[in-house]
């Protein structure tokens, strides 16, 4: 960065201690198949999947268990062979711990792949739409945590005429190292997936952005990408939230995504490196997304490291496999410490978007009492999207949500930088989450009121129509009766005259 840039570029973000090593350097361990898997039907953004199996049915590994439902949804497949034990409710991997519909699969221990998988030796010869279809069939979703159905993103970027594919290998969240590990160990597969995605989206080139605190991953990816001219690997400065779509695109391409717009607005689409691997597996081997690499880390984990776990394994089983817990964790988190969800308990399943499981000790969780805001504006300086967290939180505390939206609440990406730097320990992100949830609930209520009005109008129209039809039928009957009467009278008159 030149001097002029240093002076005129606004700094954003934070530099938290990353806690990534030693977990990142430990070799990957593969978790044995648990006896039961709990497959949530809502593992992706959008509508939950609809079960396509019956209780008691035998399934093989990779068989489809649930179909996507509606335009934004993803299929769910069996992570192992076994019997469907139940379809019911389990506790969702969510701070509320409220129930979610799930398919419960009893493993038979044989772990047999289905024979119906369609492999492909020359996927670059396939039609781009065919790649999208295979990715959709494999139930691939964004592996970075947003879990947006990948096939949809591929087809929509093709329609939008995207020119650059940005691959997110930033992994800026502290503690997490699964993308790092994946890039070190499976760089070839990832590059293959990137080239398939280039083909599917019609983008001309791909840039892989990797934070400079992962030199091994950069080296491995550079080596794998050397053979291809259209894939470039670019180290980027380690800073949180570098992995956020808008920040990553701006850093790598210099293009700024407008507020409320998608990266496609500047001709870019962003995918996670984990997604590239899943796409390659899905297209070349026909293997659906049924397991993933995730980081088990935190001060209370005995042997931190990266673990390949089947989707649907319980968090408590994954932690037990990673060596178990010592002491009492102050907080259990799914995902990263900045943006992940705090889990109320460990009896909840791993989903496709689970990038990590953290058992943080008291010092790491840092739950300190909220104090009064001293208006130091540290949060405004740290905010990567340049809104004023202190002012917005003030409006939310005063129940002035409209004012909060006016100050840019809707642009907030919930990265947590503001709460991280706040010297008064104000839970700013919680304020924003509360306000966003409340606004969404109000929106839903408005939509419901609108729908109710339509239903009421339809009903009154129906009642009017029924009354009209009844009157018409009555009038017709009456006319018929009178015609018959007249005919009878005429006949009798005729008879008389005859």
């Amino acid at each position, binding site marked *: 960065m030149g001097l002029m840039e240093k002076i005129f570029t606004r700094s954003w973000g934070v530099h938290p201690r990353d806690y990534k090593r030693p977990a990142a350097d430990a070799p990957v361990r593969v978790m044995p198949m648990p006896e039961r898997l709990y497959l949530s039907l809502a593992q992706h953004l959008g509508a939950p999947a609809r079960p396509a199996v019956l209780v008691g049915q035998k399934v093989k590994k990779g068989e489809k268990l649930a179909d996507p439902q509606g335009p934004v949804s993803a299929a769910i497949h069996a992570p192992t062979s076994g019997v469907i034990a139940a379809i019911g409710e389990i506790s969702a991997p*969510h701070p509320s711990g*409220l129930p979610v519909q799930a398919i419960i699969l009893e493993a038979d221990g044989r772990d047999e792949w289905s024979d119906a998988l369609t492999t492909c030796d020359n996927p670059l010869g396939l039609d781009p739409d065919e790649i999208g279809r295979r990715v959709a069939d494999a139930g691939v979703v964004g592996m970075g945590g947003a879990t947006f159905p990948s096939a949809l993103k591929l087809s929509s970027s093709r329609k939008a005429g995207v020119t650059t594919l940005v691959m997110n290998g930033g992994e800026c969240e502290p503690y997490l190292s699964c993308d790092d590990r994946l890039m070190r160990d499976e760089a070839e597969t990832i590059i293959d997936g990137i080239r398939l995605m280039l083909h599917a989206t019609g983008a001309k080139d791909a840039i892989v952005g990797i934070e400079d605190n992962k030199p091994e991953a950069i080296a491995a990816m550079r080596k794998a990408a050397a053979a291809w001219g259209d894939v470039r690997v670019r180290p980027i400065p380690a800073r949180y939230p570098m992995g956020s779509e808008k920040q990553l695109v701006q850093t790598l391409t210099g293009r700024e995504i407008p507020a409320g717009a998608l990266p496609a607005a500047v001709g870019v689409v962003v995918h996670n490196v984990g997604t590239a691997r899943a796409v390659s597996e899905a297209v070349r081997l026909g293997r659906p997304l049924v397991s993933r690499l995730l980081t088990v880390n935190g001060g209370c984990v005995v042997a931190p490291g990266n673990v390949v776990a089947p989707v649907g394994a319980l968090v408590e089983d994954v932690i037990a496999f990673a060596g178990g817990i010592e002491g009492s964790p102050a907080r259990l988190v799914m995902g990263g410490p900045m943006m992940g969800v705090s889990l109320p308990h460990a009896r909840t399943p791993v989903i496709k978007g689970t990038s990590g499981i953290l058992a943080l000790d008291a010092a790491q969780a840092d739950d300190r009492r909220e104090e009064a805001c001293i208006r130091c504006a540290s949060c405004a300086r740290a905010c990567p999207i340049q809104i004023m967290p202190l002012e917005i939180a003030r409006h939310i505390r005063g129940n002035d949500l409209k004012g909060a939206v006016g100050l840019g609440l809707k642009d907030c990406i919930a990265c947590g930088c503001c709460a991280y730097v706040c010297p008064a320990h104000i839970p700013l992100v919680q*304020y924003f989450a509360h306000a966003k949830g409340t606004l969404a609930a109000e929106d839903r209520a408005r939509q419901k*009121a609108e*729908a*109710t009005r339509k*239903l009421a109008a339809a009903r009154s129209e129906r009642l009017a129509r029924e009354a009209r039809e009844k009157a018409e039928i009555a009038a017709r009957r009456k006319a018929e009766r009178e015609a018959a009467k007249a005919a009878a009278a005429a006949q009798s008159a005729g008879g008389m005259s005859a």
Partner: protein
Amino acid sequence: MMAVLTLTLLGAALGLALGIAGRLLAVEADADVARLEALLPGTNCGQCGFPGCAGAAAAMAAGDAPPSCCPPGGKAVALALAEKLGVSLDLSSVLDEGPKLAVVAEDLCIGCCRCLKYCPTDAILGAPKQIHNVLKEACTGCAACVEHCPTEALIIQPMPVGWQHWVMPKPAAA
């Protein structure tokens, strides 16, 4: 004498001027009522105690009813009405019960079809001698059906909150 005359004449002149102005600047009151009625659910369920939504809108326009008088409309409708009426609304005191829903107790329903015709949104599904069901997307929890059930099989319950609709609680003030 002069004083009385002056005041009388002044009063008469001003009164006349205001009368003419009133005629010229007359506002048709119905427009207000129609605007309010458009915000109400339009189900005419009668829970507000007025004859239908039009009646409630008229009462609100006249200031006889608070904007929070529509239970099925909930917070969203109350807020919209309060904005239209230009009054501030104390939400904390009135409506914190959340949305409601009618549920059929399957062991009590005898399939008499009586409730069907009272539902303002056609949310109850049923056929003679079949257990009825309530479509939860269409039900407003207005309770119009409850009193018509001979076996008390219709129960009004709070709408269950799914994890997707869960709202993070506001941090407790320090």
